[in-house]
């Protein structure tokens, strides 16, 4: 079974040279630590920054320079700053190549729920609805099953939706899966030591298993 760091590490392998990438809060933020060496990637933060750098050194924090998670960060040579409307303009116009975000539930037709638990969590969707509605390439980092062992990969989402028919790839602690255009979770890779049977019983939605399923590799 994969840790959160390993999920992030596996997703990082999907990032290609020349990509502009938006990273969501949580596991997606960790992806920045594993971007393959030798490729040029620009991170977009939707509060208005392209070229997000690492956290500042102690004592060099700047209250005016934060990311979408409200963390103090730095810029890099070649960074640019813009307003919120332009930030979502470049997202809507599909200038951002890849969006990586978390989810509470995903359905077998590519719907995603990640912003609201009725009566419990009242935080808001932030930029998630804009991102999932517009991004051409979205990878979801999520837990396959919750603490009670219940599947989060469902025939149909039970929580209020963030977007419909928009998710194509998922990386969980158990597996890498594609969502097929005609529906269904196609198993691509399994985490080391995890059996196909266990993935099957952890996936409430339709799981498609064809041929040999290799173990995920992180190198």
């Amino acid at each position: 079974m994969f840790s959160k760091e390993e999920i992030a590490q596996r997703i990082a392998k999907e990032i290609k040279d020349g990509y502009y990438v938006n990273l969501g809060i949580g596991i997606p933020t960790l992806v920045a630590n594993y971007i393959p060496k030798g490729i040029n990637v620009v991170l977009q933060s939707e509060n208005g920054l392209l070229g997000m750098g690492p956290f500042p050194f102690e004592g060099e924090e700047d209250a005016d320079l934060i990311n979408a998670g409200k963390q103090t960060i730095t810029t890099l040579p070649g960074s640019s700053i813009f307003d919120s409307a332009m930030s979502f303009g470049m997202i809507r116009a599909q200038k951002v190549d890849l969006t990586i975000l978390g989810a509470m539930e995903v359905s077998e037709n590519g719907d995603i729920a990640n912003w609201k638990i009725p009566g419990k969590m009242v935080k808001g969707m932030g930029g998630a609805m804009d991102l999932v509605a517009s991004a051409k390439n979205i990878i979801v980092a999520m837990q396959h099953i919750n603490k009670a062992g219940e599947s989060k990969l469902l025939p149909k989402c039970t929580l209020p939706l963030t977007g419909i028919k928009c998710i194509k790839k998922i990386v969980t602690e158990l597996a890498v899966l594609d969502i097929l255009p005609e529906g269904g979770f196609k198993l691509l890779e399994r985490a080391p030591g995890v059996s196909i049977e266990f993935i099957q019983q952890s996936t409430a939605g339709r799981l498609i298993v064809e041929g040999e399923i290799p173990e995920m590799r992180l190198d």
Partner: protein
Amino acid sequence: MINKVVSGAEEAIKDISDGATIMLGGFGLCGIPENCISALVNKKVKNLTCISNNAGVDDFGIGLMLKQRQVKKMISSYVGENAEFERQLLSGELEVDLIPQGTLATRCLAAGYGMPAIFTPAGVGTEIAEGKEVRNFNGKDYLMEYAFDADFAIVKAWKGDTAGNLIFRSTSRNFNPVMAMAGKITIAEVEELVEAGELDPDYIHTPGIYVHRIFQGKNYEKRIEQRTVRKAEI
């Protein structure tokens, strides 16, 4: 040049009265108009509708106005940092319209560009689409969302001049320029106010035509919500 300078926050907000709709710039606590928020708290103006990406934290920003029950309705995209907000919302004391962040920004933009509505794919097929007009363009569905109609926009800039021209600094820019364009009356508080002519026209982010009142703020706290650092390399 038309002089837009007022004496301070108190004068700038003097005609904001009960029931007004106001936009407040900022993302989290970054780039919020601290001086005007303090003045609104002191004035105890009530039944406000506030359009702002976030709702501050319990003891800073818009959170201070929430604590005094000055806000009737919040229009925001993310309010996760405020326990008092959550309490008022769940108890029904506060009306809340949660909308996608890009929709929020673009509805400001539309108001500032003189366009009545926008079409955005954000929220199609979700509960926020209920009751909204859907239009299909080139095979994809879009929601129609109206431009905001706000009595006042209150923004914070880094530098400004007496003609109302504004320059923002770093990511404290965020919603400030689009809200500045969107208010019927726009109030700008700046860290440094200079004479007209001292700012290079090529580097102005918000032209003074959008700004009706400007003043140099004081005692900026600029609170950091998530202080994250790395250790110095040895």
